[in-house]
């Protein structure tokens, strides 16, 4: 991708943006080149993560949130992640189906992304795809995670504001006090609020929040009710995202989050690179031989790792 293309990405040309994201997904030299070229133009977008269990209405909610920002005149980029099959390597990316309202609006760019083997709720390339959208001038970037269970919390490291979407009737109050996904919410949303059990779900979430020891100046996530299919309650969600952003700015937390994110990203890439370099230096036969020795109980896995790295 040459300098002209990078210019086109920055100008928000959808073809250039689409191809840059594809290159980033493929990885390697070209991906690095693109990131190097655009990196200094990033850091402007407000990145909003949307996570929650499958079927809670994340995609429909993202559609409605995007519409709200469009009404406010802001350009919106969306990265929607769905899982890759561990068996076939294929994926069915169906999030666009719920985002039809946004079709034909040049101020919106939607990209579906398969996890390609990555765990944690995002694809390995998601963070870099967000950088492309950021550099292309999208002021709001929404990341929709895969349908998350309890432990897919990578989104919190990648977003400024994380929305956790629940639906009524998905579990009792014990679910609400478990560790994991509930802890990463900056805004809690109970979607499908026309369902009769909505009161109990809101109460369980509120109870959980109230049990948390209070520290000074700490952000307390609001619990909001929405009906994403009609758009009801979504304006309030967007208002609260704005409040959260203002809170982050007032307490100089944007930088703290950026720092934590940069650290996590750097660690991940160094780990990946070290592993790749190490494995290039080790011949496959030695690696396989060690695996056999471990299986035969002739050595243990730590001793084998020592041998590889020594």
């Amino acid at each position, binding site marked *: 991708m040459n300098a002209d293309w990078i210019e086109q990405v920055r100008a928000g040309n*959808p*073809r250039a*943006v*689409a*191809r840059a*994201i*594809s290159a980033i*997904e*493929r*990885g*390697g*030299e070209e991906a690095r080149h693109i990131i190097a070229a655009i990196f200094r133009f990033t850091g402007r977008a407000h990145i909003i993560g949307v996570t929650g269990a499958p079927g809670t209405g994340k995609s429909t909610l993202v559609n409605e949130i995007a519409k709200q920002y469009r009404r406010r005149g802001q350009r919106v980029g969306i990265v929607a992640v769905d899982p*890759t*099959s561990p068996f*076939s*390597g*294929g*994926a*069915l*990316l*169906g999030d*666009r*189906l719920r985002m*039809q309202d946004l*079709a*034909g609006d040049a101020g919106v*760019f*939607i*990209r*579906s992304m*398969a996890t*390609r083997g990555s765990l944690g709720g995002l694809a390995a390339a998601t963070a870099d795809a967000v950088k492309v959208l950021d550099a292309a001038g999208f002021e709001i970037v929404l990341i929709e995670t895969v349908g998350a269970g309890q432990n897919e919390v990578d989104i919190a490291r990648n977003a400024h504001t994380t929305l956790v979407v629940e639906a009524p009737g998905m579990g009792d109050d014990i679910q609400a006090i478990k560790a994991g996904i509930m802890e990463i919410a900056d805004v809690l949303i109970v979607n499908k609020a026309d369902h009769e059990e909505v009161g109990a779900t809101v109460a369980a979430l509120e109870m959980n929040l109230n049990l948390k020891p209070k520290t000074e100046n700490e952000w307390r996530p609001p619990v909001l009710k929405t009906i994403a299919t009609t758009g009801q309650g979504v304006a309030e969600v967007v208002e609260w995202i704005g409040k959260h952003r203002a809170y982050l700015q007032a307490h100089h937390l944007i930088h703290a989050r950026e720092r934590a994110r940069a650290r996590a990203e750097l660690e991940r890439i160094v780990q990946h690179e070290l592993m790749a370099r190490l494995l290039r230096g080790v011949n496959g036969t030695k690696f396989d031989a060690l695996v056999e020795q471990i299986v035969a109980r002739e050595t243990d896995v730590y001793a084998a790792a020592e041998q590889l790295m020594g």
Partner: protein
Amino acid sequence: MAERPIRVLVAKPGLDGHDRGAKVVARALRDAGMEVIYTGIRQTPEMIAEAALQEDVDVVGLSILSGAHRELFPRIVEQLKQRQLDDVVLVCGGIIPDDDIPLIKQMGFAGVFGPGTSTQEIAAFIRDQVAKKRGARAE
């Protein structure tokens, strides 16, 4: 560099609402190791082309049962061209009379799959077509 998985957009242009066939094909292509972007029913030519552009797909697969293909397919081809997506592999399926097949191929469709086509056949055809395009681009 590893080959990227083949990306396919599956869409239903026009107004007929029967998407079971499209879903069966989408699922089969997933099982064949492809990344399938499923956009569902009632897609306008503009919506299809815009999605193909943003998703940077290798293939656009259209399912149509209403008989409006003579009307809609040229408009879709036109919209793709406007976005410089000339090298996307176009395939279609559904209810398409045999007499119309030459016309559709002339529009630039590589494959037309009627009822009874096995999904393996469709996957193999797509894989073959994409390999040819990628080979041509690499030269």
